[in-house]
């Protein structure tokens, strides 16, 4: 691979998850072109015989390889120095997680490769230097996550390619190094997640995109000329097909996979599944010859995996492999396999080429990796230190390692060379694979294996399990190992186990391959993600809970502060145990955590104060934020100029960008703090409204400056476009939101038959609004708010009471969870992230934040007050200025900044500002509010009188404006209301409620609440109200008192009516009365017959009253429910009988309020002489029982006010 210098680098990152795939590719290509030529020598020199010394020094977890020095987790390779997690490779120095490769130096997670120096996570490759997660490749220096390739330098997540340097997530190529999620290729290294899952797409990619171009590449690599390259490492010629894969799935030959699945020959896989020859795999599953597998799930998930391999994916994969690639590849591979190149992967499988993996074991392969395994190299100086290793001439460094000629130092190691294979490694391998390896693969792959197709076919066959003995061998071995190693992971089960059995004792492994049905199996990987998410949320909520359990803490310190502290502690802990703490990354934040909070805020936005102060809010949000951004930016620039030193490099645009990030008040932080201090509505809406509406400004400024600082120049046109952009972003956002809001309202019109899903519509439409706005870079926050505000009145009129409660609770719950998580993550990522602390910069930032905020607020208020009716006082200004907290939005925007030398500096400053505002300002604002005696929010709920007067005042003011012909804000509001009532409501609200005036709905709602309260409290006795309708009924109406006499037949009638009417819960709820609600209906309808009975009752006397009284006393004992309300009512009429006629006011008491609806009152008014609450003794008793029963049902119903 190294040798394949001028080779075109085919790095097809078709399935890239990243945003800027093109960039990466180009990078790769460039680097490849540059590095390959010079490097071959270097690396090759390393790998060549002279190097067999296999001088590897591993200081950390796993080291497999010759001449390698690994200091960290896994190292597999020759002459490599790896310092971190996994290293597989020759002559490589890897310092981090995985390293597979030759002559490579990897410093981070995975390194697979030759002559490479990777410094980070995975490195697989030759002569490559990878510094980050995965590195697979030759002569490459990648610095970040995954690197697989020759002579390539990749710095980020996935690298697969020849002489290529890819730095991002997906890399697939020949003689390439792939280190992350998906890697598929020949002589390739694949290292990541989803080979199994997305094979169809991947393969198509492979086929369509890469294969054609690659065959040459690979062939060139594998061909004689290339032997030197990577191949030099593994095979004598280089058939080594020196591919290193480091991640999840790898299928291919001469590939190195380091992750989940690897199937192939001569490959090095470091991760999950590896099937192949001559491969080094360092991760989860590895099956293959001459392969090194090093990771998790060989034992655990074989059943599913295998099934996947066999049933699910093989079809697509194989077809792809067979149809697409074989043709082009045969040449390549064939070239390899041809006499000169027998070594290649095919060489391994073919008789002539037993070499491949076998070549390693065979004499001819002394050099390269094979050199390790071969006699000359018997040193097979592979050292595996972790879980399972299976393979020949392979070095696997992670969880599972199965292999020959390998030395494993950790949990489970089965060596052929040593134990199984013994010195004559060939035997070992042969025992497994059989000397005539060809048979194995050949049997599977068909005789004509010389080509690559065989390899692939072998893979396919292996995936097919049944047919492929070799794979089965491997699987058997693996199974055995797994059984041994992973205690409970014996769930090898059906597929693998079944396959394994025919092969009998897999070679030298003296472990039983047949495993009993797994009673208990472990499958953590399967649930890992949701499990961890749940764990985080649980942690967050428990913390939140804890703060409220501990007394007084929440009084002093705002919750947000406590949560950040918890985050810091957790972050510290995670760091202490050596894990990588999750950062608050922008996707998580903007797509999942922020929307619930904003929706909650928008949906429950207090409309009236908001609209009344919208001018002020807009001025603060737009002008204020602009001022802050530019002032901050300018001042920071000046400071940087003056300070010089490390700050000298900060240019004006960067400063402005920084200013725009740090100047925006954050709704999350504001909400968290202001909710706790209960400040008056005006101030709350001013600060909070500003924090919501400034989003548009922030978005525009941020993108603008980011763009400018990229380009470097700003013209007037740009500035103008910026202004236009602002309007587009804000108004566009609002429009998108409003459209979704109306859609949502309209949808809710039809949900009366499927109440259960009602709440979901609210959430989904809102979320869609947010996402749609984000699609166009519009202001998602404004969109969400517009959606909530638009939707709410109509939705609330449409949905059932239960749905309303559900919506409310879900919103509150989600926003609360989100908020908690945000603060905790803020703490965690503070610990996790890189920092560049510069005293001047940080201190100046904090100071300027305060200064510009104060100046902005004071200056703007001065102007605004000229137009406001209610002026903002000095106190108000202070609170508005002081309440300008910064928060997670600023942090996330900072996090989003392109990598830049100043990024960490900015990020540190932003975090400091956030912490300063949240801690210092957040904690002191409460005492200050109290000190200044700022008006607090009123505690009580809105009373009906206030509602009446609000309405009255609205109309009055509109009227007065009309009288003096001034079209002010009331006028337009009135117009809007009328339009809304006449047209919009009709369309958006179903049924009669569309015409219901606001006052009435308020009244209904209030009654409902009252009724619920009453039901909940068990009886009306606990309610505070001591005044009933009788007290307010005009006296004049109650002159006469009569005691109705009721006949038996009448009683019956009454009872019937009562019963019928008690069913109508809703009507009952209409009436407003604290005491009488329960009994109301009785009363109301009772009166009807009573009126008829009036004439006869006219002569009622005291005796009756007495007996009635006794009756009452008696039945009071009978029913608890009845006594309290009933007693009170009955008592007074009785007493009235005794006392005087003047107290006739009492008479009415049972009437008005108790009536099932207001018509009761009208009845009363029409016939004042009615005497309601008189009943004969029998009736009292009977109806007493009845009442009891009915009340029970009633209270049941009330407590569960079903869909209205």
């Amino acid at each position, binding site marked *: 691979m190294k040798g394949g210098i001028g080779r075109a680098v085919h790095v097809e990152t078709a399935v890239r998850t990243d945003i800027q795939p093109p960039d990466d590719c180009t990078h790769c290509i460039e680097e490849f072109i540059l590095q390959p030529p010079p490097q071959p020598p270097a690396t090759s020199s390393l790998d060549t015989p002279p190097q067999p010394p296999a001088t590897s020094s591993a200081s950390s977890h796993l080291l497999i390889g010759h001449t390698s020095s690994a200091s960290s987790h896994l190292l597999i390779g020759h002459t490599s120095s790896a310092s971190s997690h996994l290293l597989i490779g020759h002559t490589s120095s890897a310092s981090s997680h995985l390293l597979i490769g030759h002559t490579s130096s990897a410093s981070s997670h995975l390194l697979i490769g030759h002559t490479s120096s990777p410094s980070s996570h995975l490195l697989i490759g030759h002569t490559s230097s990878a510094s980050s997660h995965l590195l697979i490749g030759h002569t490459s220096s990648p610095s970040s996550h995954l690197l697989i390739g020759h002579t390539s330098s990749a710095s980020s997540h996935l690298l697969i390619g020849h002489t290529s340097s890819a730095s991002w997530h997906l890399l697939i190529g020949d003689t390439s190094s792939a280190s992350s999620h998906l890697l598929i290729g020949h002589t390739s290294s694949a290292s990541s997640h989803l080979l199994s899952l997305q094979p169809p797409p991947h393969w198509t990619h492979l086929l369509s995109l890469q294969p054609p171009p690659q065959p040459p590449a690979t062939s060139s690599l594998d061909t004689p000329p290339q032997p030197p390259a990577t191949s030099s490492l593994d095979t004598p010629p280089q058939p080594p097909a020196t591919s290193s894969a480091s991640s999840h799935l790898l299928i291919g030959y001469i590939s190195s996979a380091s992750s989940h699945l690897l199937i192939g020959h001569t490959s090095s896989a470091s991760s999950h599944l590896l099937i192949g020859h001559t491969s080094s795999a360092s991760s989860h599953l590895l099956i293959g010859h001459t392969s090194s597998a090093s990771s998790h799930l060989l034992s655990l998930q074989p059943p599913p995996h295998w099934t996947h391999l066999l049933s699910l994916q093989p079809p697509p994969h194989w077809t792809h492999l067979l149809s697409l690639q074989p043709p082009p590849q045969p040449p390549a591979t064939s070239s390899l396999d041809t006499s000169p190149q027998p070594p290649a992967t095919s060489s391994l499988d073919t008789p002539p080429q037993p070499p491949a993996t076998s070549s390693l074991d065979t004499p001819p392969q002394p050099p390269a990796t094979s050199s390790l395994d071969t006699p000359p190299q018997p040193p097979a100086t592979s050292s595996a230190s972790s879980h399972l290793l299976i393979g020949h001439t392979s070095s696997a460094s992670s969880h599972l390692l199965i292999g020959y000629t390998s030395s494993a130092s950790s949990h489970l190691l089965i060596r052929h060379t040593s134990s199984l294979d013994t010195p004559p490694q060939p035997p070992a391998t042969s025992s497994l694979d059989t000397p005539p390896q060809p048979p194995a693969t050949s049997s599977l792959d068909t005789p004509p294996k010389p080509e690559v197709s065989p390899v692939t076919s072998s893979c396919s066959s292996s995936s097919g399990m049944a047919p492929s003995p070799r794979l089965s061998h491997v699987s058997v071995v693996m199974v055995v190992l797994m059984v041994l190693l992973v205690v409970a992971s014996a769930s090898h089960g059906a597929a693998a186990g079944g396959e394994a059995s025919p092969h009998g004792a897999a070679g030298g492994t003296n472990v039983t391959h047949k495993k009993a049905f797994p009673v208990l199996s472990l499958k953590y990987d399967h649930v890992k993600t949701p499990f961890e998410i749940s764990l985080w949320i649980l942690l967050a909520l428990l913390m939140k809970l804890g703060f409220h359990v501990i007394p007084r803490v929440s009084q002093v310190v705002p919750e947000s502060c406590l949560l950040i502290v918890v985050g810091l502690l957790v972050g510290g802990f995670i760091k202490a145990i050596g894990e990588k703490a999750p950062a608050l990354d922008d996707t998580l934040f903007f797509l999942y955590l922020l929307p619930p909070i904003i929706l909650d805020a928008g949906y429950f936005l207090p409309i009236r104060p908001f609209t009344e102060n919208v001018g002020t809010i807009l001025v603060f949000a737009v002008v204020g934020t602009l001022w802050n951004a530019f002032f901050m930016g300018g001042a920071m620039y000046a400071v940087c100029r003056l300070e010089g030193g490390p700050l000298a490099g900060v240019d004006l645009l960067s400063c402005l960008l920084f200013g725009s990030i740090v100047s925006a008040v954050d709704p999350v932080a504001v909400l968290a703090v202001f909710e706790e201090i209960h400040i008056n509505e005006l101030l709350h809406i001013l600060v909070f409204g500003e924090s919501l509406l400034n989003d548009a400004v922030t978005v525009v400024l941020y993108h603008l400056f980011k763009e400018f600082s990229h380009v470097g120049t700003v013209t007037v046109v740009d500035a103008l476009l910026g202004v236009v952009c602002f309007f587009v972003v804000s108004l566009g956002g609002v429009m998108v939101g409003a459209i979704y809001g109306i859609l949502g309202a309209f949808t809710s019109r039809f949900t009366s038959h499927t109440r259960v899903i009602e709440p979901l519509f609210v959430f989904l439409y809102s979320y869609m609004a947010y996402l749609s706005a984000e699609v166009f870079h519009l202001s998602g926050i404004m969109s969400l708010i517009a959606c909530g505000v638009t939707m709410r009145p109509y939705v609330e009129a449409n949905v059932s009471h239960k749905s309303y409660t559900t919506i409310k609770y879900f919103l509150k719950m989600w926003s609360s969870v989100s908020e908690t998580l945000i603060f905790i993550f803020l703490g965690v990522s503070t610990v996790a992230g890189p920092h560049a602390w510069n005293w001047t910069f940080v201190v100046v930032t904090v100071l300027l934040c305060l200064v510009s905020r104060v100046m902005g607020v004071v200056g703007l208020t001065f102007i605004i007050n000229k137009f406001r009716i209610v002026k903002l006082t000095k106190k108000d200004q202070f609170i508005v200025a002081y309440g300008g907290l910064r928060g997670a939005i600023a942090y996330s925007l900072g996090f989003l900044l392109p990598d830049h030398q100043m990024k960490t500096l900015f990020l540190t400053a932003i975090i400091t500002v956030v912490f300063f505002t949240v801690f210092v300002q957040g904690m002191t604002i409460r005492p200050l509010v109290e000190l200044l005696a700022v008006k607090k929010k009123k505690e009580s709920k809105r009373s009906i009188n206030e509602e009446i007067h609000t309405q009255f005042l609205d109309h009055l003011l509109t*009227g007065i404006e009309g009288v003096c012909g001034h079209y002010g804000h*009331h006028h337009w509001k009135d117009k809007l209301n009328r339009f809304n009532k006449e047209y919009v409501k009709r369309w958006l609200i179903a049924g009669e409620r569309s015409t219901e005036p606001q006052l009435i709905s308020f009244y209904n709602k209030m009654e409902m609440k009252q009724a619920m309260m009453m039901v909940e409290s068990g009886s009306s006795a606990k309610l505070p109200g001591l005044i009933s309708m009788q007290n307010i009924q005009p006296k004049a109406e109650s002159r006469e008192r009569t005691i109705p006499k009721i006949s038996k037949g009448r009683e019956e009638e009454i009872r019937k009516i009562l019963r019928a009417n008690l069913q109508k819960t809703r009507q009952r709820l209409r009436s407003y009365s604290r005491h009488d609600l329960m009994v109301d209906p009785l009363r109301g309808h009772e009166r009807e017959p009573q009126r008829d009975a009036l004439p006869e009752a006219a002569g009622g006397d005291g005796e009756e009253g007495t007996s009635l009284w006794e009756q009452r006393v008696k039945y009071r004992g009978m029913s608890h429910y009845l006594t309290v309300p009933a007693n009170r009512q009955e008592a007074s009429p009785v007493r009235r009988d005794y006392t005087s006629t003047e107290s006739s006011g009492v008479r009415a008491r049972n009437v008005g309020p108790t009536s099932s609806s207001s018509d009761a009152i009208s009845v009363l008014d029409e016939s004042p002489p009615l005497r309601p609450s008189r009943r004969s003794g029998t009736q009292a008793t009977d109806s007493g029982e009845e009442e009891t029963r009915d009340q029970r049902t009633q209270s049941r119903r009330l407590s569960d006010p079903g869909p209205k």
Partner: protein
Amino acid sequence: MSTFAVQHNHSLNPVVSVSCPRREDFNTIPDLACNPIRSQIIEAFFDRRNFRQSDGAGTVREIGFGEFLAVMSHFRPPSIHLKEEQREAIRMEKLRFLFNMHDTDNDGTITLEEYRHVVEELLSRSGALGKETAKGIADAAMLEVASISMGHMEPDEFYEGITFEHFNKLLKEFEIESRMNIRFMNMDTPTLCK
């Protein structure tokens, strides 16, 4: 004053275009046509109690420009530099205006009947439903007032109606001084109406 009249009234509506407008003139104002409490608003302009130099109760048949402005002056916004007493005075004055609108018979209390009338008027635009509910609402509101202002009441006691103190108490949280205002363009209304 004349500026005010000319600017805001003269050309726009018939009230001030006649020298001494009567109720009929007010009734012709188009903007009032849809207002549910139109009659009450109009009454307020002819209520003696709302004139500054209030000489007793009762209504007048026609008002002059001075009276008109006197009524309008109830709607001027308070200035920012007010002492607490002044603020309170303004509040009282505005409340009194409202109270007078409700207390049609000028007996110092808003009786249930009167209150019902108010609510009915408010809901007069919403058809039969409103009419039906209005009483219930008024009764509920009255109950609320009674419980707020009287606390406990014996069953045989009778709550006469809302007195001004009760009214004040009732709307204590209402912040009427900052709500019952009309912005008259850029005119400095306080000086105009003195």
